C-alpha cells in the first residue's frame, strides 16, 4: 500500500517520532507546569507554534511540487489562502447573532455594506462538514483548472512560475474588492468558536495546535507515500527529462496535474488550520511576497527532502519572530541575506548539510565503488 510504505521507512519514523514527541512535550509543559516556571509554555506560544506548523505543512506542499516535480510554484499562497477563506467563512457563520450588529445570518461586514441577504456562495458554510470539504475542494478545483490549462499547453519553468505569481496576485486584487463578498480589505475576523469550542480558551488553542501537528504528520506521510511510490519516480523523471518520460508512455501533464492538485489541497488544509489560530484571514495572504517567502523556506531547508521543508519553515519563522521583535526593519534584509548565503554555500539547504554526513559513511558501499570504477 503506497500510504503505509513510508511508515516502514526509517526517515519517516524519525520525523514522526520527533514531531509527536514535540507535540507531547509542548502540551505537557503547557498543562502541568506552574505558570511562573521557566519551562512553562504559555498559550500564546502554543498558538505561535501551531502557526509555525501550518507554515511547515504549506512548505511540505510546496516541496512536493518544486522538489519532486520541478514546478516552482510562486503562487502556493493562493491555495493556502483559499483554504483559509473556506474555514473563515465557516467561522463567520458560527458567530451567529453575537456580531456587533447582531444579525442572525449576515456577517457584520455584509450588514455594514447594506446587503439584504447572504450571497449564494456563502450557502452551506454554516455546516462544518461542508466547510471542511470546501477547504479541500476550493484550492483543489482552482489547481485542477489552472494546472489543466498550464500543463496541457506544456507551460513549464520560469513561465509557469510567473503565471502562478500572477494567479495569486490576481486573486489578491479580487479579494480586496468589497463586492466579492469576502470582507474586502479587512477580510474575515472576530471569530467566536469552532465546532462549539470557544476559540479564546486555552484548551481550544491547544487542541488546534495538536490538530495542526497531526495534519502535518498526515500531510508528510501522504507526500512521502507519493514520493516513494513509482509515481514519485515518474515525477522525478518528468522533472529531469520531460520528453523522455512522455516517450516511454507516461502522460506527463496528468502526472503534473495530479501532484499539483494534491499539493494545493495540502496547502488549503494548512490555511484552514492557520485561520482559527491567528484569528483573521485577509487578502494579504494572497500577496505574491508571501508565496515567495514560502519558496525561500523550502530552499533554506533543502529541496526534495520534505523534512527539509519543515525545518526551513520552522527555522525561518522562528527567526522572523525573534528578528521582528528586536529590529523589525532589518528582517527582510536578514531573510534576503540568509537566502543568498544558503544558495551560495549550502545549495542543498540545511537538509543537505545533514545528509552529507550520512553520505560520507556509505561511500564505501559496493554500488558507490562500482559506480566510480
Amino acid at each position, binding site marked *: 500500500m503506497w500510504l503505509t510504505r513510508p511508515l516502514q521507512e526509517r526517515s519517516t519514523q524519525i520525523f514522526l517520532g520527533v514531531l509527536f514527541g514535540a507535540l507531547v512535550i509542548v502540551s505537557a509543559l503547557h498543562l502541568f507546569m506552574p505558570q511562573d516556571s521557566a519551562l512553562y509554555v504559555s498559550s500564546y506560544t502554543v498558538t505561535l507554534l501551531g502557526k509555525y506548523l501550518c507554515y511547515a505543512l504549506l512548505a511540505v506542499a510546496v516541496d512536493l511540487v518544486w522538489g519532486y516535480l520541478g514546478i516552482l510554484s510562486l503562487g502556493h499562497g493562493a491555495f493556502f489562502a483559499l483554504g483559509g477563506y473556506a474555514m473563515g467563512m465557516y467561522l463567520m457563520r458560527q458567530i451567529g447573532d453575537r456580531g456587533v450588529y447582531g444579525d442572525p445570518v449576515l456577517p457584520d461586514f455584509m450588514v455594514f455594506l447594506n446587503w439584504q441577504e447572504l450571497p449564494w456562495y456563502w450557502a452551506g458554510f454554516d455546516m462544518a462538514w461542508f466547510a471542511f470539504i470546501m477547504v479541500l475542494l476550493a484550492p483543489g478545483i482552482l489547481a485542477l483548472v489552472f494546472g489543466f490549462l498550464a500543463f496541457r499547453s506544456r507551460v513549464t519553468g520560469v513561465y509557469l512560475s510567473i503565471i502562478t505569481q500572477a494567479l495569486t496576485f490576481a486573486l489578491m486584487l479580487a479579494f480586496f474588492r468589497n463586492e466579492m463578498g469576502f470582507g474586502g480589505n479587512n477580510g474575515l475576523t472576530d471569530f467566536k468558536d469552532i465546532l462549539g469550542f470557544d476559540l479564546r480558551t486555552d484548551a481550544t488553542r491547544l487542541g488546534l495546535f495538536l490538530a495542526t501537528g497531526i495534519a502535518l504528520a498526515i500531510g508528510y506521510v501522504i507526500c512521502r507515500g507519493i514520493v516513494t511510490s513509482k509515481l514519485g519516480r515518474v515525477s522525478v523523471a518528468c522533472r529531469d527529462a520531460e520528453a523522455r518520460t512522455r516517450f516511454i508512455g507516461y502522460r506527463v501533464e*496528468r502526472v503534473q496535474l495530479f501532484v499539483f492538485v494534491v499539493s494545493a489541497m495540502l496547502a488549503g488544509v494548512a490555511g484552514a488550520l492557520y485561520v482559527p489560530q491567528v484569528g483573521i484571514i485577509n487578502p494579504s495572504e494572497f500577496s505574491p511576497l508571501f508565496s515567495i517567502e514560502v519558496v525561500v523556506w523550502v530552499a533554506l531547508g533543502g529541496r526534495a527532502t520534505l523534512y527539509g521543508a519543515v525545518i526551513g519553515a520552522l527555522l525561518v519563522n522562528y527567526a522572523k519572530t525573534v528578528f521582528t521583535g528586536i529590529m523589525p526593519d532589518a528582517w527582510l534584509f536578514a531573510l534576503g541575506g540568509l537566502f543568498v548565503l544558503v544558495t551560495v554555500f549550502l545549495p542543498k539547504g540545511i537538509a543537505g548539510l545533514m545528509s552529507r554526513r550520512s553520505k560520507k559513511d556509505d561511500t564505501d558501499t559496493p*554500488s*558507490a565503488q562500482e559506480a566510480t570504477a
Partner: protein
Amino acid sequence: MSIFQELTNRDQVFEFLAPVQSPVDVRHGPILYMEDVSVSFDGFKAINNLNLTIDDGELRCIIGPNGAGKTTMMDIITGKTRPDTGSVWFGSRHNLLTMNEPDIATLGIGRKFQKPTVFEALTVFENLELAMATDKRIFPTLTATMKPEYRERIEEVLEMIGLKDLRNAPAGILSHGQKQWLEIGMLLMQKPRLLLVDEPVAGMTEQEMERTAELLTSLAGKQSVVVVEHDMGFVRSIARKVTVLHQGSVLAEGSMDEVSNDPEVVKVYLGEEA
C-alpha cells in the same frame, strides 16, 4: 462456402472492426512497410518517393549523407511528422499514419534519439522500472508494486545491456556509452517489436562500440532493429542488409559489399570517405 462460414462465425469480430490494439500482424513477413512516402518542408523534399520494407526480426542499417532524410524517416514512423503522400504500415494491420506518438510507442515501436537521455537522478534499476510495459495511468502507477516477474524482466535486461553491477548506481554517473546502453535497455523494457536506433555509437570508444555491436546483433531475431549510423566500420561489423538513402529516397539496398561496390553509392557517399 468457406468465406460464408467465416462471416457467420459469431465468436469472432470482423477484422476491420477489430480494435486498434490488436496484435501486430506479421504473417506476411514485413513488420514495417513504407510505400511512396513523400514529405516536403517549405518546398524542400526531405523524403521523396521512399519505399522501404523491414522484415520481422531483421537488423537493418540505414546510411546516407547528411540531409538524406534519415531522421525525417524516423519522425514519420514514430508519428512525429506526417507525410504529404504515401502509406506507412506496421505489420499488415496498423496504419501508422492514423496514430499519435504515445499510441505508436505502446504498439511497439521504440526510438532511441541521438543524444542519450536517461533519468539521471534515478538508479539504473529505477530507470528500467519506469520504462517497463505496464499500466502507465496515474493511480495504477501510484499503487504499483514490484512484482517478481517485473524484477526478473529488469534483471534480464540488465544482463543484456551489461549494467548488472551498476543497478543501484544513479544513472547520472554512467559513462556516455553506458547511458546509451541504458537507454536501449529502457526501450527493451517496453517490449517493442521494432527498435529505431539513431547513431548508437557516436562518441563511443572502440571497446564500447564492440559491446554495442554485440548488443544490437543479439537483439535482432527477437525484435526488428533499424540502425541509422554514420560510422562505416560499425555498420560493416553488424549489418546484414544495408539501405543507402540519398536525397530522400533509396539509392541502393543489399549486403554491405554489394552496396559499397555500387558505383552510384560510391559517388554520393562512400566516395567522401575514400
